């Protein structure tokens, strides 16, 4: 019986780890549905981006109020993990507050900092819940933010609030126990925030206090493990994905579109231009032009999708969305992830995977959405974790134009004008230089 708690703890950790590893494998599989591209140049710049944008939250501070609240959550998450480490050590060894002997006078300081962060997290989460549900911030109420995405956002905040409450409850009960039986409960020193809760437990028997303290302890640690698994199903995955995603994000100017080398080979052949690429035998079969489904995108596009936390900064700055068009860059990312997850799930259960008769284009994202894009890059600029919705839109447009010939009629006329008149408008190429005629006749100013 003496080791029962430890055995239960080890079992819970083992089960949680097993589930987590399986979930991580599923996510990896989802990302790797994408086409292979090599991204390993300019490592120094990439590390810098990751440090500034993911670790340093640089782009969050374009909107200062949510940035500060988010910083509390982020700081709380990073630093409170040190306390969770003590929980884990206690859980495995059966000790209570195993770090007290090693940290001495620093221990109460540490605990007070953790409690401060716990309270900051708690308050931030409450403010976020109010903002999201009562203040009607527009970006949280778009048409793609109903049902699961809406519930997901609220669940995350509620789970974080309860986890923080558990820490404070545990510490309050523990401080009573430290007074009543100091031989079992090492002194943590006075903990400012939880001591405010102590009057609540004053009249409890020691036995009840032990129950309260243990319940809060188990609730917190099991809650954290459960939350870790939950995150893999949730938009909250950004807490991990933000780091690789900023590392692998493009370093080229935002206006630069990726060249399609497969097309270059064909164009060079048509124009009779000899290049090394043409001389070399075709390396692999050319897939589709552009993207119809998730496997036509690159793994980086799919990593973008798994990194999206649906904050909607992209959509709130999209000129098409602001003026009432169907396009929402956030929805592009959500659809991409949903489709990738559907394919992986389907493959896992022996289904047809990508051949299920559905595709990202048409079944998830419509032409009306992508045709509304002005390619202004406001979405790319706005994303705090460097997601690029525009690249996916471009790839879908390429598929529509080159594989389906399904572009809007006026675009087809524009294509035709360029082909025949070398200008997007229907003007005679011989008139191109006419603008200079009056100028050549005009008397020049000195």
């Amino acid at each position, binding site marked *: 019986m003496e080791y029962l708690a430890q055995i239960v703890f080890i079992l819970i950790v083992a089960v949680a780890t097993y589930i987590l590893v399986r979930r991580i494998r599923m996510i990896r599989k989802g990302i790797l549905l994408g086409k292979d591209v090599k991204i390993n140049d300019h490592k120094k710049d990439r590390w810098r981006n990751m440090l500034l944008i993911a670790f340093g939250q640089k782009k969050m501070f374009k909107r200062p109020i949510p940035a500060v609240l988010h910083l509390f959550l982020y700081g709380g998450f990073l630093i409170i993990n040190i306390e969770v480490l003590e929980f884990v050590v206690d859980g495995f060894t059966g000790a209570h507050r195993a770090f007290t002997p090693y940290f001495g006078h620093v221990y109460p300081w540490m605990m007070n900092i953790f409690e401060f962060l716990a309270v900051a997290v708690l308050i931030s989460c409450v403010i976020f819940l109010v903002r999201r549900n009562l203040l009607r911030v527009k970006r949280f109420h778009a048409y793609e933010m109903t049902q699961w995405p809406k519930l997901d956002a609220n669940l995350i905040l509620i789970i974080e609030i309860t986890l923080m409450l558990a820490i404070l409850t545990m510490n309050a009960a523990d401080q009573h126990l430290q007074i009543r039986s100091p031989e079992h409960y090492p002194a943590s020193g006075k903990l400012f925030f939880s001591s405010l809760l102590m009057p609540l437990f004053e009249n409890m028997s020691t036995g009840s206090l032990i129950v309260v303290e243990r319940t809060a302890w188990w609730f917190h640690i099991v809650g954290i493990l459960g939350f870790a698994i939950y995150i893999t199903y949730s938009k909250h995955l950004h807490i991990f994905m933000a780091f690789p995603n900023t590392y692998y994000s493009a370093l080229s100017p935002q*206006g630069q579109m990726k060249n399609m080398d497969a097309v*270059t080979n064909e164009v060079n052949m048509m124009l009779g231009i000899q290049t090394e690429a043409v001389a070399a035998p075709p390396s692999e079969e050319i897939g589709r032009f552009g993207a119809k489904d998730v496997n036509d995108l690159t793994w980086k596009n799919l990593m973008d999708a798994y990194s999206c936390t649906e904050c909607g900064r992209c959509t709130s700055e999209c000129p098409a969305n602001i003026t009432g068009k169907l396009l929402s860059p956030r929805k592009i990312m959500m659809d991409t992830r949903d489709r990738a997850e559907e394919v992986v799930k389907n493959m896992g259960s022996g289904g047809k995977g990508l051949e299920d008769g559905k595709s990202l284009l048409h079944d998830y994202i419509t032409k009306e959405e992508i045709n509304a894009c*002005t390619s*202004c890059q406001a979405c790319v*600029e706005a994303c705090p974790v460097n997601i690029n919705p525009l690249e996916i839109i471009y790839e879908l447009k390429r598929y529509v*134009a080159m594989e389906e010939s399904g572009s809007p009629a006026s675009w087809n006329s*524009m294509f035709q004008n360029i082909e025949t008149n070398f200008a997007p408008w229907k003007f005679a190429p011989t008139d191109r230089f006419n603008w200079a005629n009056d100028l050549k006749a005009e008397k020049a*100013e000195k």
Partner: protein
Amino acid sequence: MSENTYKVPTMAEMAASGESPEILFWVGCAGSYDDRYKNVTKAFVKILNTVGVSFAVLGPEETCTGDPARRAGNEFLFQMQAVSNIQVMNGYNIKKVVTACPHCFNTIKNEYPALGGHYEVIHHSAFLQQLINEGRVKLKGGGEFKGRKITYHDSCYLGRANNIYEAPRQVLEALDAELVEMKRCRTKGFCCGAGGGQMFKDAEPGKKEVNVERTEEALSTGADTIAVACPFCMTMMSDGVKNKEKEGEVKVKDLAELIEEGLRG
């Protein structure tokens, strides 16, 4: 007398006489055909003439960069255009390109290198800023702009695409006018609605036109001049001003036109 008229030499003429100009002025389709934007082309050429910059144009040899085709998804057409333009430019051994169109600028600067076209590409806003800084453009400062409010509308393909936010503003400041900013400016600049091939099609169904939304914002600054640095922005903002029936009070002007007016004093 030919002495006193503006010169618009072509690369072909230059090559025939064994000369090579310092810059190629890439005019672009809007600059060549669009009635409103031809005025900008002429203003810029006048500045080049007045300052004495050695330049040439491709004239009838210039064709669409392919940008609208590429943004609309037609990569084949884009590359056909790009590769033939690059052949022409490389044939003349061109090193430096200046253009008044941010879309041409972005394409030639960022997207032609992958297809074998490597040039130093400068947008006319940055080029004008250079000329002003070097003292080669001397504004007469007849006080025409003094005290007038000008607002600058950021072009997406200069701003977010290529991080050019300050050059156009410095050009405007040289005019001695009062530069007033819209709330959505620089990295948060609101698109005119014409990018990504939208110039060549009707907008998708919505509750408002993008250019009207932007024009309302520009008008709310109280500026009497909306300065632009892109042919598409020029069209969209001019249409917006017309839509709001303000064309009597508010003018939409390109940077080159404003500087050319400033030169005349």
